[in-house]
């Protein structure tokens, strides 16, 4: 689920109308355009034309115009073309697409995403091969056919909705059937994921991207993003990417040990900055050796400008998943410009702030949960006693929580987490002397608690933040555990969970207390709501979902760059080119593992018995490499 930051600024209607009247020839009525287009479409794809004719364009599809009268379409806030120069943007896209098509000797292109057709027209002018357009949203077809005269384009392309996308089986470059799947990036960034799913399906079948990315995930030294780095790494690995986590929490003590120098605050900050500089240099050095396609930094990862520039020089795509409140943690102002992609858990205001300082591609990417870790547990009675209560809260002692949670002191109530020092009034319910709670213990607590309070943090409210937007990881983690929660209202919550049926939302601390009392007496209701929340979370809110969206967004905008990077072939790649005993030897190894001579030789030397000719040749190559290429390889 990702939402682009590129929203269209609607022009002043009066100014627009007068300029249109002055500059443009009279436009034919939209109905006439649609009818003509449908007739042309019907001649090529009657079934599709029929579906489009009966399609209803929902209000989220918004048509506007440029100052020159060029139509613009946005869907759920995602603009499907450049807001000022859709033709120029389409031309730029088409030029890149033709380069890719030519480089691979493709005779056929499948374009996922129609938009209003600017990019497809530009492609049709430059590419002589067949062009199939796969637009799975009939409403987009209708909008496009209503807004623009596409008869010439429809005569040139093979229009479709992707369901019958042509034969995309992998073909050698230059073969008559060689096909490339091209993405219309804005379409892929639509929140509903319709186009992204189609694109990925086609990519997988065609093998035309062959993208198994090499991703370096960089964690912060400490803080809430740290476990997220680990979850993200696991998810990326499960998605089949070659992933490595640089867990910089190993340096947490080093940061703390700076206190040894007993420096004044400003100097201490400088020392911390220098330490982070060293860590950033270490990340850059790792990237030089690991040669990742993507470096994914989590919020607070110690990457300064120098480190980011060094990473950029390796050719890696730099992505930041900023899972913090952009208003509270403002360091992004110094570094955002040095990222290629910034993913955030907030939207409009956050996008606007980021856009003011950087040209990175921005996308909304909310938090998530890890089903392997955040899951229902059958607790022993001992654990139930140790971790359970009627009401509990797990988290840090921010101001609004210290004030709001007093309301629960008359309950069977426990508070778990760090940074509660000085909250004398809560001392009685504070567990483990304000020690940090591990993720594993948090899951036990969630499972053992009847009503989990989930109050988002604020340093300056007394309870609920009325302007609160982002949704914290705890929301998803509680849902994943199948644990009942009361969560404070957040503007971005409704599109993630249905209030009332999947989550119980409170607008104030008082309301949260009343809800707690209500649901403590209704265990069945709690179970049903929690069950629906878990189902929704499993279906849409795992880290695999997030990482899939993240990768898709990166691929959509940087596919050329990723494809241009050399990568070692897999065993399957090499095996596919061979026959006989050599192929059998290669197929002994995991298909998707990168081919390495060392791996082959290890397999040979670990096996008893006679050495085959193929194995002996690999031994020869390995020894040649050791003898003659040792220094050259490093």
């Amino acid at each position, binding site marked *: 689920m990702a939402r682009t930051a590129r929203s269209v600024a609607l022009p002043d209607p009066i100014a627009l109308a007068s300029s249109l009247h002055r500059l443009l020839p009279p436009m034919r009525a939209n109905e006439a355009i649609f009818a003509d287009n449908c007739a042309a479409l019907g001649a090529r794809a009657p079934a599709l034309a029929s579906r489009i004719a009966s399609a209803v364009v929902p209000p989220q599809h918004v048509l506007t115009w440029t100052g020159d009268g060029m139509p613009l379409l946005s869907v759920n806030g995602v603009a499907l073309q450049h807001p000022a120069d859709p033709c120029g943007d389409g031309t730029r896209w088409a030029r890149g697409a033709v380069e890719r098509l030519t480089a691979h000797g493709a005779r056929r292109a499948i374009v996922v995403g129609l938009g209003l057709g600017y990019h497809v027209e530009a492609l049709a002018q430059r590419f002589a091969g067949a062009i199939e357009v796969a637009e799975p949203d009939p409403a987009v077809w209708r909008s496009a056919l209503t807004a623009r005269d596409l008869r010439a384009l429809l005569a040139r392309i093979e229009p479709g909705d992707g369901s019958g996308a042509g034969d995309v089986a992998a073909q050698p470059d230059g073969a008559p059937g060689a096909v490339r799947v091209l993405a219309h990036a804005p379409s892929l960034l639509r929140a509903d994921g319709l186009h992204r799913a189609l694109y990925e399906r086609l990519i997988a079948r065609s093998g035309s991207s062959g993208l198994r990315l090499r991703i370096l995930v960089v964690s912060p030294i400490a803080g809430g993003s740290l476990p997220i780095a680990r979850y993200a790494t696991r998810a990326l690995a499960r998605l089949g990417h070659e992933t490595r986590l640089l867990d910089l929490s190993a340096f947490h003590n080093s940061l703390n040990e700076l206190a040894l120098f007993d420096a004044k605050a400003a100097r201490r900050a400088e020392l911390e900055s220098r330490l982070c500089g060293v860590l950033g240099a270490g990340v850059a050095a790792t990237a030089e050796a690991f040669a990742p396609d993507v470096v994914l930094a989590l919020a607070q990862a110690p990457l300064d400008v120098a480190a980011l520039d060094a990473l950029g020089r390796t050719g890696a795509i730099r992505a930041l998943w900023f899972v913090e409140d952009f208003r509270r943690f403002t360091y992004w102002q110094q570094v955002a410009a040095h990222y290629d992609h910034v993913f955030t858990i907030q939207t409009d205001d956050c996008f606007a702030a980021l856009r003011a300082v950087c040209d990175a591609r921005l996308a909304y990417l909310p938090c998530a949960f890890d089903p392997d870790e955040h899951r229902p547990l059958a607790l022993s009675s001992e654990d139930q006693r140790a971790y359970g209560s009627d009401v509990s809260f797990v988290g840090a002692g921010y101001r609004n929580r210290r004030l709001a949670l007093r309301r629960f002191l008359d309950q069977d109530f426990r508070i778990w987490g760090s940074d509660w020092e000085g909250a004398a009034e809560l001392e009685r319910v504070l567990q483990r002397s304000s020690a940090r709670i591990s993720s594993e213990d948090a899951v036990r607590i969630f499972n053992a608690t009847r009503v989990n309070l989930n109050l988002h943090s604020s340093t300056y409210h007394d309870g609920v933040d009325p302007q609160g937007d982002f949704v914290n990881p705890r929301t998803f983690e509680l849902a994943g555990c199948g644990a009942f929660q009361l969560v404070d209202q957040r503007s971005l919550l409704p599109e993630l969970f249905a209030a009332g049926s999947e989550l119980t939302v409170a607008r104030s601390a008082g309301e949260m207390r009343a809800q707690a009392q209500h649901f403590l007496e209704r265990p069945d209701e709690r179970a049903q709501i929690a069950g629906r929340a878990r189902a929704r979370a499993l279906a849409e809110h795992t880290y695999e979902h997030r990482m899939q969206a993240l990768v898709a967004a990166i691929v959509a905008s940087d596919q050329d760059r990723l494809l241009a990077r050399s990568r070692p072939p897999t065993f399957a790649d090499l095996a596919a080119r061979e026959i006989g005993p050599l192929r059998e030897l290669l197929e002994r190894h995991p298909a998707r593992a990168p081919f390495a001579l060392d791996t082959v030789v290890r397999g040979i030397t670990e096996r008893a018995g006679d050495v085959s000719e193929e194995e002996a040749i690999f031994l*020869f190559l390995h020894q040649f490499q050791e003898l003659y290429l040792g220094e050259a390889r490093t």
Partner: protein
Amino acid sequence: MSARRILIVNLTRLGDLLQTSPTVAGLRALHPDAEITLLAEKNFAEVCEAIPGVDRVHRIDLDHLGHLLLAGGSRVGEAFHFVRNTVAELRAGRFDLALNFSSSRMSAVLLGLLDIPDVRGWSMTSDGFRAIQTPWARLFATLCLNRRVAGFNLVDCYRGVAGCLSTATPGLSFTVSDAARARVATRLDAAGIAAGARVIALQLGASRAVRRWPIESFARLAHELAGDGKRIVLVGGGGERALAAELLQACGSCATPLVDLCGQTSIQELGALLERCALLVTGDTGPMHMAAATRTPIVGLFFGPALPFDTGPYGTDHVVLHAGVSCAPCDHAVHCLDPFCRRTITAELVASVVRARLAADWSSLAEIGTALAARAPVRLYRTGFDARGLFDCPVLGTVLARPEDELRRAYRATWLTLLEGVPLPGARSTGLVDVAPFAALAELARLGTELTARLDRLVIDAARSLDAVQRVGREIEVLDRAIGEHGRVHPDVAVLTQMFAFEKETMPGEDLAGLTKESARLYRDLCRSADCMQALLGGSGAVGEVDHASIRQ
């Protein structure tokens, strides 16, 4: 039995290929009707084609293979097929005898792939293990690990592997073409060097920096020799051009102008040039071996890992200066941070040696050697051949004997006795070497013969006496480990224990009875070799002088 198609594998460089030439001559003498093929790296094919007796040169482009592997990706598949095609081409040669002079795992794998019935040198068994075939090849591998006491020149080891030690030794051979001679003559004329002029060539470079004599030393030498009126020519490959420029600058103006031909001669032209030279001053380099092949007198500068005994110029009346410092020879794999040994060979010393050699003044050279021994760790050696036609380089002058000299002499005699049946010479003990470790080794070997005798009695009915067989087998394992450790604790016997280890790993077959008999033989050989060494080293006495060894003229 006479071979019909012989393959010699030597994937090394100029010098090593030239050092193969006596073996080729010996093979030709033993197998007059055989076709002899030399497998060499493409860049050195020109050398092989000029070695008399070589019928075919099979080139392998290792540069191309390297590029494929470095490119990685799908090009590794191309590399695989490159090797497969090379193997197929070599198999098509239907060789019946192969000699592997490239002592590397890579070449061993290659020989294992070629299905040649008689392989000598490094090879690979069917189940992927190293096998060093023939005793001389195992001895060569052993001496490479114990160079301080290596008693044979590499060339003679090659000849031993080929089984042609009994054939006459022509020395190194390289056929220089008339066209190359003409080109060189023109070049030297243009430089004002007339035919008949006494030209001294200086080979500036070496394969590794640690083997390179300092340029400032070469510069002082050039200055001195030019002052004598000699014409100096700088030789070497393209990689030495920078060194030549450095030398010319350091030299300044000389009495006679220096001629820089670095990187300007082909291999043929290098040979032609060296033919015109009265003498070559060089480190242990390929051009040194070329000079040996063209019978150009050599003054060799040996230090660092270079040793005159195993890689000295294979010919007669060459002079080698060797910096015999306590850490010599250093291992090829180490990176020395202070190669002080190079500085022990001064330009003034080399100049005096060059002058004496040019005059064939062996008395002066002996005096220089004697004087050197008193004040420096440098020794002078005169190359030649012993009565059996094997390379020898006795020291020039009167010097104090050293334990390694004794060991080298003793080992040489021992192996000639064991491998070639030469009668063991009489003892010439100086008491410099402790013989107790050899005695202890002999005892261990006798224990081995006892164990194998016991095993031999048991294997007749192995099925019934399986436990006993296994017990004796374990004892033999323990004994072999003890033998190996004995060699590590007492390096003087390491040659014997290492040779024993190589022999053991190459025992053929899996039949227990056969292996038992073979093991017994190996223990007997070990015992005999230890006894030989004791006999040659045994006795006591004051430290004495070492005479010139007899030199076959």
